[in-house]
């Protein structure tokens, strides 16, 4: 790592963490942000980046990135997927515990951290498994895992069937001030592959009703009230889920929620005739749900946008719909899809960037997503007016599985800087 003295000049700096929204300069030394505005006395920039007409914001923080395909070796994927992250302006990613092997022991945490440090170009954070082997039976050593570096705990896509185990897990996590990340779905009602509604009926595919999500959220909200645990609900998919979270927040429960970039812009109708790239869990729902998710993002009920990046082999999507693997390779389209909210919902740039930086960083309780003085110089510089066409074949990610291939999107990452090093430069 070189760690040059860098000055980024003439850029429009948007840093919601510090309420900065103005055209000014930023100066970096030894990997840290040392000044905004005039350069400090004696500072000699070895590299000057002209960010005229560009937005300069904190490197994005993505709450959910699956680093590798289940069952496959991870030899190259931390390298390739963190490269995809920085190409998308993302400098911090958080990996859920459903890796193979599962992140339920300190050795696994250390292995991922080590690999990330040696091979990765973005910062990699991990969640610990909530229960051992994610089986929903015994509690994981979540305190030891926290000490090893986990920034939260989760049972990932495996619902904890036992209400008692879920209660205990929330109590235990809460005792050690650990945020529980919940992907809420009822195990009994989730045996489908698309939203239960028009499309499931038309295409004859097994449906997942909205109640699969709301029953699980309702149960867990009751348990959160009972235990005092702090929880984050992952990838809301329906209007009714938004309502439940909104009510819980209004009554003072410590809960937050995120939405994926694809749920903000796609609906069940995009499945058309069995487009397996639109096979995701939770499923894409109706236009009404999509509009309410957008509104909830604007109002702040949902305070983070995630990619829920899942890089898959090309074979994984080459089968009849129900036999394909769910998931989208989302790192490289996260920012432009989020920026689409400028037009769709009249959110301003600062609101959008906060939901990609400081808000997710707060949920993880990490010192990222900010351009504060003394903080790591993790910075994304993008051209907000540049249109580009998504080409999956140009993805850095090994996963080419995207429903956005061919879409014309606005907003292109020009530079990504991590700890003072330029880790991505658009050609």
């Amino acid at each position, binding site marked *: 790592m070189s760690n040059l003295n860098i000055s980024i000049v003439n850029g429009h700096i948007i840093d919601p963490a510090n309420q900065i929204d103005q055209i000014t300069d930023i100066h970096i030394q030894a990997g840290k942000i040392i000044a905004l505005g005039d350069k400090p006395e004696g500072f000699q920039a070895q590299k000057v980046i002209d960010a005229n007409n560009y937005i300069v914001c904190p490197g994005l923080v993505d709450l959910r990135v699956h680093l590798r395909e289940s069952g496959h070796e991870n030899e190259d994927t931390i390298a390739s997927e963190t490269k995809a992250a920085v190409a998308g302006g993302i400098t911090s990613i958080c990996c859920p515990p459903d890796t193979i092997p599962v992140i339920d022991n300190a050795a696994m945490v250390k292995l991922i951290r080590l690999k990330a440090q040696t091979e990765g170009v973005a910062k990699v954070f991990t969640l610990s498994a909530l229960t051992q082997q994610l089986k929903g039976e015994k509690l994981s050593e979540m305190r030891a895992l926290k000490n090893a570096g986990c920034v939260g705990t989760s049972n990932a896509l495996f619902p904890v069937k036992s209400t008692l185990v879920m209660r205990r897990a929330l109590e235990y996590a809460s005792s050690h001030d650990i945020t529980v990340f919940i992907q809420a779905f009822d195990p009994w009602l989730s045996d489908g592959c698309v939203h239960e*509604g028009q499309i499931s009926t*038309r295409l*004859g595919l097994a449906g997942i*009703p909205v109640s699969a999500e709301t029953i699980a959220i309702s149960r867990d909200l009751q348990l959160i009230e009972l235990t005092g645990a702090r929880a984050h609900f992952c990838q809301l998919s329906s209007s009714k889920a938004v309502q439940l979270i909104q009510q819980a927040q209004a009554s003072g429960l410590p809960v937050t929620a995120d939405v994926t970039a694809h749920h903000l812009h796609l609906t069940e109708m995009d499945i058309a005739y069995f487009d397996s790239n639109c096979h995701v869990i939770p499923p894409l729902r109706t236009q009404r749900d999509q509009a309410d998710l957008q509104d909830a993002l604007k109002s702040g009920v949902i305070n983070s946008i995630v990619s829920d990046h899942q890089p898959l082999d090309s074979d994984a999507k080459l089968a009849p*719909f129900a036999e394909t693997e769910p998931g989208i390779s989302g790192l490289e389209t996260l920012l432009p899809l989020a920026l689409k909210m400028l037009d769709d919902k009249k959110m301003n740039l600062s609101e959008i960037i906060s939901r990609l930086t400081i808000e997710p960083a707060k949920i993880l309780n990490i010192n990222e997503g900010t351009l504060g003085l003394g903080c790591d110089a993790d910075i994304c510089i993008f051209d907000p007016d540049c249109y580009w066409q998504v080409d999956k074949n140009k993805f850095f990610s090994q996963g080419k599985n995207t429903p956005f291939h061919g879409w014309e999107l606005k907003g292109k990452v020009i530079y990504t800087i991590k700890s003072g090093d330029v880790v991505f430069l658009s050609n």
Partner: protein
Amino acid sequence: MISKNIQLDEQGRLRHFLSIEGFKRQHLVNILDAAEPFANVQEQAMKKVPLLRGKTIVNLFFEASTRTRTTFELAAKRLSADVLNININTSATSKGESLLDMLQNLEAMHCDMFIVRHKQSGAAHFIAQHVSPHISVINAGDGCHAHPSQAMLDMFTIRRHKQEFADLKVVIVGDILHSRVARSQIHALTTLGVSEVRVVGPKTLIPSNIENLGVHVYHDFQSALIGADVIIMLRLQKERMQGALLPSEAEYYQQYGLTEEKLSYAKSDAIVMHPGPINRGVEIASSIADGPQSVILEQVTNGIAIRMAVMSQALGPKSPNGGKQP
């Protein structure tokens, strides 16, 4: 996003036959009209016509079927095509990769048409999207999605008994949720302008939002039968008793089985249909299945003519406009 209808070629002619959805009324009428002469051919001593001589048709069945496969085979042979039957144990090709590999092998043998049956919804679409441009794919049933040739033979049978589609009240009874036949019938009936399509069954067997397909939902069989011109009974799979969809066959028969008494609520000239194979005493009383209002065996016969029509439209000699564009 509306994707392109891959069932039609650049000139708007039939290329694949995957689902009724996507076809206009005139397309369907063309198929029905094309089937008429074939229905007559079958009654002659010399049943073969040379329309598809030199073509190779592959019956690619990933799911067991006797009747559908046989009628496709007969239809192909009566069109003078060569027929290859391949029954594939689904477990051997549970991965899409090997499915595509297998298709490529078949393509290398210079086949012209795949007739596909598969337990997964969308399988025929998937195959159609990956075959070479000269190959046609006919869906012979995919999961719970579609069985378009069955629906067309049903329309053909209805047309032979009832003159105008527009005036009809059609009742479809039973396991709509799992039925690809019902879905294709609904699309065919509404596309052909039938004024009222009613679906009947307990909520456990009616898919959500089915009203959006243009049908009326009934849970009470008798009230649905009032004024009906056509009654289509669906086969009830035994496994529906598992998974808490139904309490018992006996209770099902009591509520949704077609008996003489219930049939009396329909119009006196109503016809009774069933895609087969029938479960006597579960969906339908034997006296009705074998009675004067039943057209169940006619459906089987008409299946050959309809399949000849579909195959010859997709593979046969094509005039520039084929007379097929609406």
